[in-house]
């Protein structure tokens, strides 16, 4: 049920279906590699076709080259870099804060049953309103800008990382803990050599999904609560009906999200999981 179920490809070989060798296999491998591009190509084709046939106004649906041109223009003017960097900086601050507080809080709560039980209703409630719901209230406290966006991201990421950490900490089998203790390990050693590694896969799962929620919260926050950033860039473009900037911005938002997931989080997660080997489900099942 994990992502790797599909990524491994047919027969788990990483290549084309079947185990045949020779040129046919390499061809199939190439096809398999290129396959993920087809939906993008189809959408692009449909877009161009619709644009050529229906000739919608530029405000409704701009031509593909207009979108590219708009992005290029913004990039040359340096505006694009400002927006992207502002967004990424806020995301980094919010996620860093959220992970730090979430992990520390998760350890404290996960290791203390009474506290966990006392806090659990509050956690459920505040998790339900985490993120964008705070915007109207906090905008009055922090004003428009980076602090507001960071608060909203922190608020979103914290609860996800926190809940996952608590889960991870609580699920570490007691036997391991007792094993270290029986060998004379103190509280600190139990924490660092049993509970932390045991909970790490959960923490990382939390981080990964927290980043997904955080990125959404950021874009939503920037729509109204910022003067720079990608969200503001596309929302500001609405006033002038600049669909080219909006679509370009949306594509960029998707690309950044996918790049972060693929090159930042997936490798970290896989390395931890491989190292501590706590996952054994679908990754080997197919």
């Amino acid at each position, binding site marked *: 049920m994990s992502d790797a179920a599909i990524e491994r490809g047919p027969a788990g070989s990483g290549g084309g279906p079947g185990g045949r060798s020779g040129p046919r296999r390499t061809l199939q491998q190439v096809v398999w590699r290129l396959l993920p591009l087809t939906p993008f190509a189809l959408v692009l084709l449909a877009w161009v076709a619709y644009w050529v046939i229906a000739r919608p106004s530029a405000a409704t649906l701009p031509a593909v080259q207009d979108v590219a041109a708009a992005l290029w223009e913004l990039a040359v003017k340096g505006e694009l870099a400002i927006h992207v960097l502002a967004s990424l900086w806020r995301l980094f601050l919010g996620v860093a804060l959220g992970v730090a507080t979430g992990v520390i809080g998760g350890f404290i709560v996960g290791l203390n049953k009474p506290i*966990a*039980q006392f*806090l659990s209703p509050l956690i459920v*409630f505040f998790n339900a309103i985490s993120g964008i719901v705070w915007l109207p*209230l906090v905008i009055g406290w922090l004003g428009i800008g980076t602090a507001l966006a960071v608060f909203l991201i922190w608020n979103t990421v914290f609860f996800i990382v926190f809940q996952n950490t608590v*889960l991870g900490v609580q699920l570490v089998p007691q036997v391991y803990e007792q094993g270290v203790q029986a060998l004379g390990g103190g509280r600190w050693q139990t924490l660092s050599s049993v509970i932390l590694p045991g909970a790490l896969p959960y923490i990382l799962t939390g981080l*990964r999904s927290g980043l997904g929620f955080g990125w959404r919260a950021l874009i*939503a926050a920037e729509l109204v609560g910022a003067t720079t950033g990608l969200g503001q860039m596309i929302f500001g473009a609405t006033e002038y009906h600049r669909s080219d900037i909006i679509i370009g911005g949306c594509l960029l938002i998707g*690309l950044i999200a996918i790049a972060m997931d693929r090159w930042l989080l997936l490798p970290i997660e896989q390395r931890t999981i491989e190292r501590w080997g*706590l996952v054994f489900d679908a990754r080997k099942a197919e």
Partner: protein
Amino acid sequence: MTTTAAAPPPAGVVPSSPLRKGGVLRPLRSFRILLPFAALIAVWWAIWASSEFSPQVLVSPVAVWHAFLHLVSYGVLAEYASTSLTMIGFAALLSLVVGVPIGFAVGVNRYAAHALEGFLRFLQGISGIAWLPLAIIWFGFTHTTTLVIVVYTLIVPIVFNTMIGVRAIPEPYMLALRSLGASRLRMVKDVYLPGALPSIVVGLRLGMGYGWRALIAAEMLVRKGGLGDLIFGARTFGQIDRIITGMIVIGCLYVVVDRLIVQPIENLTVARWGVLRQ
């Protein structure tokens, strides 16, 4: 049974809190639930009383209670809340009806699944709310805009998880049924649906988490009713009491929807088909 999985849950899933273990019929349960909130309100009150806050910054719990009564007695709150609930309910239904068949169709074919996976990930990266500016240009400040945003937000995780669920069904099950001459419909009914159901529910739950927030955010900007409109509209007049009332209602509604509708479905599927073990 608890819903905690033995292994880390699939990516992107917030596991249901292990904190809510314990019998349903414990006599102390309601007290246990209310006590932390009482403590929170006491702290809030103490902060409020400790210094002179302008009513534009922080109000007392009493003021929020009065705002709540005021909104309820005029029927405004019910109207805003029902707008939001209708929207999320309709969007969830629509996404399931459209998304699950798509997920099946794509999931049964490994080439289609492989082809679409990256695309769906990309779409998931563009949050629904990012499309709001474009949707506003296309559909104006209407309910249609909100609906489009929420359905988009919900449908992507549903399609994605349905597809993953179908792909994860062990091949022998399909081969067994097929060799016994099962029709396509039969395959869907007896293999794909039960096999993928836990994963579909996971997708629905994740989608509801994203979708509810997207709904609130969209309502804030579209300003055509709904709880997001309520709290964002109150911002313009600096009515903190109304904002906090709205936040509490949003939180309670989400907990109710999640706990009373989505989670029982999840428990039911998990208990019935037992994919997640304790």
